[in-house]
Structures are given as structure tokens and as C-alpha cells.
């Protein structure tokens, strides 16, 4: 944000008052990220476009759900986008429609079997600090997190996919999130 530019938080405040220019500015500022986030999960331009539209309409109708003390606007937006995209992915999966690459690409490969599962997805992240934090996770934790985060598989589905006990998968996901929180929070105050 350049000096004198309206902050994201101010835009959200204006949106809650029905200011349409504010939602346009928010879209202009973060639309590419929201769309990119959705596309990363659904791997389909039309579906990602629908998710993006849904996210900004949701923000327009529910701007009061944003809590400034819980995090930045941009992470709030991105999380909504990821969650909506996962909904789409699950709906497709329930109908037997498998997403095309890159989201599915080799993410179920066994740890240590060659390429890091989901490596391309994690390496494509823009934020170096996040990339490094994810890279620091043990391979088996990263693999479980990949299936959870990009595919929206439940603990049980991940266990079935990997052929691991359910309790092991739960522990891996929990430990991965705890480590990420610790690493990302070192300088960010999460």
C-alpha cells in the first residue's frame, strides 16, 4: 500500500456502509490473488471465476465478519477463497469428476519416493517466508498437509489415500500446523 492509499481495513469499513466504490477497490487490489488462490485449488478457469465472484459478493454481504484483531484482510479474503474452492472441488469429487493438473499432480506419491508430493504447488507460493516454513516440515507432514489444504481431503480420506492409521494422519496435520504457526509467528505475531 502506498502512502496515502486507503487501507484494506478502511475499505472493509466503507463496504459495511454500502460503499460500492470500496468493494471495487478491494477487487482491484486483491482480485488477482483471490482468483489465483481459487485456480490453484480447482484448476479450472470457469470454476475459479465463479469462486472469485462468490468471494467478493460474500465480502459485500458479510463484511462485518472481518475481525481486524484476528488477522489481515488479505489473509481473510484468501481463506474464504480457498474454502469456497474446496467446496467446489468436493462437489466435483462427489460426482466422480477428477480435477486436472496441476492440483492433483503427484500429490499422493509416497514420501521419499522421488519428487516431493505437491512440491510444485508449494514452490509456486509467492511468499518466501511461507515457502520456507512449508519446506521445513518433515515430508510426511507436508504430504498430509498438501492433501488437506489443496484437495480438502478429510483426515479419514487422507488416511485411506496414504494407507496410514487415522491417528497418525491427525497427528501429522496437527504437528504441521503447529510448526507453521510457530515459524510464521516468529516475526508476524500470529
Amino acid at each position, binding site marked *: 500500500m502506498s502512502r496515502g492509499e486507503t487501507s484494506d481495513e478502511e475499505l472493509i469499513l466503507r463496504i459495511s456502509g454500502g460503499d460500492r466504490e470500496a468493494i471495487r477497490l478491494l477487487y482491484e487490489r486483491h482480485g488477482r490473488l483471490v482468483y489465483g488462490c481459487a485456480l490453484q485449488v480447482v484448476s479450472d478457469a470457469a470454476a475459479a471465476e465463479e469462486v472469485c465472484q462468490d468471494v467478493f459478493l460474500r465480502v*459485500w454481504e458479510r463484511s*462485518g*465478519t472481518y475481525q481486524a484483531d484476528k488477522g489481515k484482510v488479505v*489473509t481473510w479474503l*484468501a481463506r474464504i477463497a480457498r474454502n469456497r474452492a474446496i467446496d467446489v472441488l468436493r462437489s466435483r469429487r462427489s460426482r466422480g469428476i477428477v480435477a486436472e493438473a496441476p492440483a492433483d499432480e503427484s500429490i499422493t506419491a509416497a514420501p521419499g519416493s522421488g519428487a516431493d508430493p505437491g512440491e510444485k504447488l508449494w514452490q*509456486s507460493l509467492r511468499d518466501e517466508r511461507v515457502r520456507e516454513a512449508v519446506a521445513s516440515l518433515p515430508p510426511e507432514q507436508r504430504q498430509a498437509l498438501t492433501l*488437506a489444504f489443496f484437495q480438502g481431503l478429510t483426515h479419514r480420506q487422507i488416511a485411506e489415500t496414504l494407507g496410514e492409521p487415522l491417528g497418525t494422519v491427525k497427528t501429522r*496435520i*496437527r504437528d504441521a*500446523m503447529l510448526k507453521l504457526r510457530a515459524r510464521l509467528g516468529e516475526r508476524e505475531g500470529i
Partner: protein
Amino acid sequence: MSDPHPFRDLLPGYSLGILDEDEIDGVREHLAVCAACRAELASFHEVAGRLAAAAPERDLPAGLEARIMRLVRDRPAGKDTIGPRGPALLPARKRGSPWPALTGIAAAVALVLGAGNLLQWSGVLGPAARGMPPRLSTAVLAGTDSAPEAYGTIVLDPKDNKGVLAVTGLPALAQDRQYQLWLIRDGQRRSGGVFSPDADGYGSLLLTVPVDFRDFQSFGVSIEPRGGSPSPTGPRVLAGRL
């Protein structure tokens, strides 16, 4: 002494929206009464948000901004609803009977079907309350943040593409508004008809669609101008999947 935070280990998974259905209710109930776990959850939400916000930006499709602004123009801005949820998973079923909505809204179904048809459908509703009849499909609809008390069921007969929607807990609407059912396939929405709830919040609708119902993967109900809209313009109050 019992553990004061029995669901703490599940909070990372809850934040990612990857809990199994049977775990979600317990976590939600505990969160409602535990500030410490709510704070813990918020920290995992932020981690998930950081992962999502690191996604590569992509060029936006032409026309998307104009479409969003058109839709925004027709909707009131809202301020006060519940925070961004995890992925919907499946709509949470109430505990007890596997098909509680069917028994709870049987009266509404009877009103829709009429006495004669009810005889024909009685073989449906009875077995459905005990377990799924083999030739029928059902979709359980859960209320959204806009109508958290709403709950409903669609019962479909794929043989003749007919069905019935029955809903309870719907807020009353202004005279110039009605609820509209949407049948959703690949992101495309087809109107399933409009209806108005009675004074007790019950609403119902007979459905006939000239294609196989099973082609639709999900359903939604939104608030629209009386008579319905070509596509959804108002807030969604119910959502569910076949």
C-alpha cells in the same frame, strides 16, 4: 479431572475444514463456550490464511469486475453475520433419526402433495424415516448464516423427475419477496420454482424438471423478488447436496 479442552487437537483440522462429520458438532459446541479454544482456532485460521494468501496472483478474466459490480448493485451490503466458515463439508445432520427433516416436515409435505398423492407417497415417507428407500434420492438442506434456523429436505423420484421440497425455520419475507429454489449443475443454476413460507416458517414446493435430477449436484434457496429471478440475486438461505 476431565480435560477442559477435549477438542484442542482437532482445531488445526477444523481450521482447514477437514474434520469428519461426526467430529464437527462436538468442536462447535465446545467453541461456543471456550474462549481459549476460540483464540487457539483464530491462530490456526491465520496460518491457513497465510498459506492461501501466498498463492500466485493470476490475471483476472475479462468482464468479471463488471459482473460483480452489477450483482453488488442489486444487493444490500451486510455487516453482521458469522465469520468465514471452513468448507461446508456435508450439511450437518441433526442427531437422532438419520432423516429427521422428513418426519419433522411431513405435514408440509402432505400439504404440498395433497391427500390423494399422500397415499401414494406414504410408502415413501414411512420407510424414509427408517432408512433410505432404494429408488428415491434425498438432499438435506442446511440453513446458511442468513437463516441459521432453516432446515429442509428435497425428496426426488428419478423415475419421473418429480420431487418435493419441504423446509422449516424460514424467516418471514416482505410482500414483494419469495424464496426461490435453485438446482445447480457445473455452476449453472436452474430455477426449481418459488414459494412463500407460512406464518410458522414452513415452506414447500412440488418439483418437476425435464432432466434427470441426479444430474444436479447441489441445491440452494435464495430470497428473490416475488415471482422469481432468472438467476440468483438475493442472499442464499439454504444449501445442500444430493
